């Protein structure tokens, strides 16, 4: 069974394009032949692999990606040495400016092109000002024009977008993390020559900050997962006593009313015991109980984010229902009536 064409196109698209670019530049030679052979083998492997997981694993473990990359680099090096035009200063300057002008064309219309293109245009203007190649190179170094190509303006804009996204998604730990990264970027910029930080050094600091926050992000998510389960069990238990239960998809069974009623009874009889075990695990993992949920930062944030699927009244009902949620018990009648009323208010009576 082959990997389907769309998936193969996605995986191999970049490599096909890289090969095609070299073909269009009339690349040839041993390294180019090797590159073609590698790509052909990657294509054929898609036809013989049983699924996409086997395919991508083989591509990685049998070093196809790295072999392609090495062969591609070898072709580029051979092409740069093969005297494509010669090596006088005028020719080198012309080639350099041509490469930058191509880059401008490729960036037109792309995201952040308004930030990426101007530094490249500055370099092209400098190159066309009549100065010699070595003077052009020196001025690029001394004025940091090369450094401006590293995309630091875009980096700051991207960071601001990430903060904005995390704020809109109500992810406070991520907001903290991205703000710290931005603060490091700004501090490095303020101390750097030309106001442009070394992007390699910044990259390491960014990576380290993301690494630092990973445990806190994981803990936040896990706490939410735990109390979500507790709310779900409590909600299902109370609702199982409501008049609408036999028509609710949580319990309706295609096999008929007997099994539907059995599903309802299972929830009524078993959820308290299940709930107590879940609560014990919550306590064991985080030192938190049911009563801590509703004032916890994770809960308050999820409510603000609109990701808690219970109304204010529903949450009150759940909290009041807790005292009755013990094995072999049932909720007080008033709780059941209020749950029914709230359900019909939200979903209408069927």
């Amino acid at each position, binding site marked *: 069974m082959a990997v389907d064409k769309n998936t193969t196109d996605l995986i191999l698209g970049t490599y096909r394009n890289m090969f095609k670019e070299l073909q269009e530049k009339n690349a040839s030679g041993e390294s180019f032949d090797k590159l073609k052979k590698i790509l052909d083998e990657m294509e054929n492997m898609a036809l013989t692999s049983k699924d996409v*997981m*086997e395919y991508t*694993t*083989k591509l*990685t*473990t049998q*070093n196809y*990606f*790295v072999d392609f*990359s*090495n062969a591609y*680099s*070898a072709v580029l*090096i051979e092409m740069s040495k093969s005297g494509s035009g010669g090596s006088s*200063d005028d020719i080198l300057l012309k080639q350099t400016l041509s490469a930058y002008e191509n880059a401008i064309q490729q960036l037109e219309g792309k995201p952040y092109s308004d930030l990426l293109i101007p530094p490249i245009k500055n370099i092209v203007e400098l190159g066309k000002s009549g100065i*010699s190649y*070595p*003077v052009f*190179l*020196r001025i690029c*170094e*001394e004025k940091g024009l090369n450094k401006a190509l590293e995309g630091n303006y875009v980096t700051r804009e991207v960071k601001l977008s990430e903060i904005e996204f995390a704020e809109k998604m109500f992810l406070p730990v991520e907001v903290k993390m991205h703000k710290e990264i931005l603060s490091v970027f700004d501090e490095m910029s303020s101390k750097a*020559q030309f106001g442009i930080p*070394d992007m*390699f*050094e910044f990259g*390491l600091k960014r*990576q*380290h900050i993301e*690494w630092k926050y*990973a*445990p806190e992000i*994981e*803990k936040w998510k*896990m706490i939410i*997962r735990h109390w979500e389960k507790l709310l779900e069990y409590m909600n299902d238990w109370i609702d199982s006593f409501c008049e609408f239960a036999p028509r609710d998809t949580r319990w309706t069974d295609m096999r008929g009313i007997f099994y539907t009623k059995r599903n309802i009874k*299972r929830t009524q*009889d*078993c959820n*308290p*015991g*299940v709930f*107590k*075990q*879940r609560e014990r*695990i919550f306590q*064991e*993992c*985080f030192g938190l109980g049911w009563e801590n949920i509703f004032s916890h930062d994770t809960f308050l944030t999820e409510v603000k984010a609109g990701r808690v699927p219970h109304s204010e009244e529903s949450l009150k009902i759940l909290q009041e229902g807790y005292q009755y949620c013990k*094995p*072999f018990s049932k909720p007080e009648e008033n709780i059941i009536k209020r749950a029914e009323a709230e359900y019909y208010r939200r979903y209408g009576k069927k």
Partner: protein
Amino acid sequence: MDQRHKEYIEYYKSRMLKYKDNSIYKNSYESEKALYEAMANASDLEEFGTRLQEGKLHIKNALALVKDQETERAKMFREEKEFIRLQSPERILDVIDTADSESSLITMVNEIEAEVSKNISIDLFTCDFYYDFMMLENIEVYQNAEVPDEWKKEINCENPERMIEEGVKDWREQVLPNARLWDPNWNFNFELIWEERHRRLIPVPDDVIKKRIGQFKKYRGI
């Protein structure tokens, strides 16, 4: 000295000066300095070209930058105790001086990074343990939930047994074969759970982890 030569001297000086007093780029500063001195001390550009080729100064320049950057990466991974990721900069730094051309440098770095990337993927199979936590909790909940007699068999026995049976089957038919596509000899290594790079991402106390390890072994039939 002709004007073009003077202009190149100034250019190589500017390259050298950008790394001056930079604590990260010490090797790069020295290699740029060597290039600058070769240019400044040459009688003409032709002599510079000869010095460049004979001393392989351009190759040494590329190596110097890689050394500086990999040294910083190694420092960071050591501090973070990310010992698998650390393999990449350490191995590159071990062999880098044997590179004698741009292509051999690129090939060397690519191959090391690809191999370490595989090792990272294999190491990350350890996360299968944490990813199973929800299931392990569910099994524990069902096994221990206090329920009326008529439900004991289904809730306390059949449910958890069915989940365990599915977990063993999934491990044997999916997880293990897929992992062995990466490493034919792979088996789950429980000691790795306690390595800091993994432990730090499991936000529960040690006691809970110890309990989950026992549950994971049963759930996966290990």
